[in-house]
């Protein structure tokens, strides 16, 4: 507890030092920005809104996400960014890093940041995307039956501590090549006696240390090509690898591909991710299925989305999205983070899927204030305790930025 308090004092001091005026560094430029989104989630079938992990857990009602960020450009080569956010988990340090740019093709980033993976995470702030929630592969906590699925493939954002080397290179005025490689503190599950999946809460919240010292490593490569005056397309590939248990035995790997086409303000975006993850099989009775002697110690979770965003008027944007996840592999009857509580038979099967269709509208009343509304149709491959495989949910939210 004392270590946690000390950590927050150190962080607050760092933020204050960045914000305070220093006349000696007159060349520094700083910007200050922030956003806040209040969203109301209504599920037509009114499932239980339970905070603890367990089958069928879903959040309903109001949720708030707010963030403030300050960026300081110390020189042409050195900059600092600090972003603090408040959401379902309370306060979280989303960013606290320095960028040292040798040249455009070589930039060194160190501190706390979300490593480069996929295309969506750059827009994870609620003010930067048109829906109140994220695509399912990147969902963190808003999906229905989140307790069954343990969230998405790679819940966004995924800030962590480490170092990244990245760069960008323009090929004439036509193509932009981006690349990054990093070593960071990865996901963890230090508390479950038989780890079967990440504990995302444990991975993101202070205590920002892990029993597993081996870093997660990964990289990203993307090519953006301008196909005309008003159009460009991006094709990217990402991958990361690490271990998540205290003994460095249980591995995980996530790979993904992304494609974005933008013509004026119309955007077509699609991404695919898959996570292959090993789990502990030393207590086979916690699983729904017997452990197969070969290939029975891991699961794979696939996720993908396709969305089209189209402005109808200057103030009104419309978004249509289809996303989903497919999980294959053994299922633990003990939800992550529930410790030694009496388990319940998981409703998931060894091949489970969810597909969601979303229609969303975003209306800007002012330049930096927007109302968001969406309707979502969910189709699960397995029935819940009430025999339902289909759900309907609604979002209504407001987001402001400054």
């Amino acid at each position, binding site marked *: 507890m004392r270590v946690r308090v000390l950590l927050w004092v150190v962080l607050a001091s760092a933020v204050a030092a960045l914000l305070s005026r220093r006349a000696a560094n007159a060349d520094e430029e700083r910007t200050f920005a922030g956003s806040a989104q209040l969203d109301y989630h209504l599920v037509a079938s009114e499932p239980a809104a339970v905070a603890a992990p367990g089958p069928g857990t879903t959040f309903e009602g109001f949720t708030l996400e707010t963030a403030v960020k300050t960026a300081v450009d110390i020189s042409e080569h050195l900059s600092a960014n600090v972003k603090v956010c408040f959401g379902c988990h309370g306060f979280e340090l989303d960013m606290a890093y320095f960028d040292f740019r040798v040249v*455009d093709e070589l930039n060194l980033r160190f501190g706390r940041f979300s490593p480069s993976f996929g*295309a969506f995470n750059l827009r994870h702030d609620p003010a*930067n995307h048109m829906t109140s929630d994220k695509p399912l592969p990147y969902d963190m906590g808003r999906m229905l039956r989140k307790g069954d699925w343990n969230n998405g493939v790679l819940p966004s954002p995924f800030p962590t501590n480490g170092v990244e080397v990245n760069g960008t290179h*323009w090929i004439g005025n036509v193509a*932009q090549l981006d690349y*990054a490689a990093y070593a960071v503190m990865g996901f963890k599950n230090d508390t479950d006696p038989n780890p079967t999946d990440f504990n995302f809460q444990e991975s993101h919240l202070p205590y920002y240390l892990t029993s597993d010292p081996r870093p997660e490593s990964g990289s990203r490569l993307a090519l953006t090509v*301008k196909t005309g005056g008003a159009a460009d397309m991006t094709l990217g590939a990402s991958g990361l690898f690490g271990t998540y248990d205290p003994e460095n035995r249980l591995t995980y790997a996530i790979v993904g591909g992304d494609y974005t086409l*933008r013509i004026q303000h119309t955007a077509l975006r699609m991404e695919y991710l898959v996570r292959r993850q090993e789990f502990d099989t030393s207590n086979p009775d916690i699983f729904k299925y017997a452990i197969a002697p070969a290939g029975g110690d891991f699961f794979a979770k696939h996720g993908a989305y396709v969305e089209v965003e189209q402005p109808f008027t200057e103030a009104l944007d419309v978004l249509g999205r289809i996303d989903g996840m497919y999980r294959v592999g053994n299922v633990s009857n003990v939800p992550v983070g529930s410790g030694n509580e009496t388990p319940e038979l998981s409703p998931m099967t060894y091949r489970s899927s969810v597909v969601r269709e979303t229609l969303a509208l975003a209306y800007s009343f002012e330049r930096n204030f927007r109302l968001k509304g969406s309707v979502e149709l969910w189709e699960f491959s397995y029935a819940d305790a009430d025999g339902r495989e289909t759900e309907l949910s609604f979002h209504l939210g407001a987001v402001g930025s400054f």
Partner: protein
Amino acid sequence: MAVEPQPDALSSEAAADYTLFSWRCSKCHSISRPLNSGIDSDEYWRLYVAKMRRQPGSGISAEDSVAILRFLHRYSIEQRRKKELRLGVSPPEPDASSPTGTP
């Protein structure tokens, strides 16, 4: 409901600059981010646009940055004028020269 500068009220060159700015600078965030940033210094805009160019997948080429900086220069002048009017200070003569921006 007007939420952005109206291209119809601008000259053709200025309208073209604004259109390119709105295309390129709304890919990863809303257009309100740069317009509400409070930055009104040509030099800082030069550094900031260069920083945005380096963001992954920005699609902002060096050629684009010339037109974008030209729009931001005009926009900054307008913001400074409005600020000075609010403060009751007589605005200086508008500077019609292009901003520094190397292709």
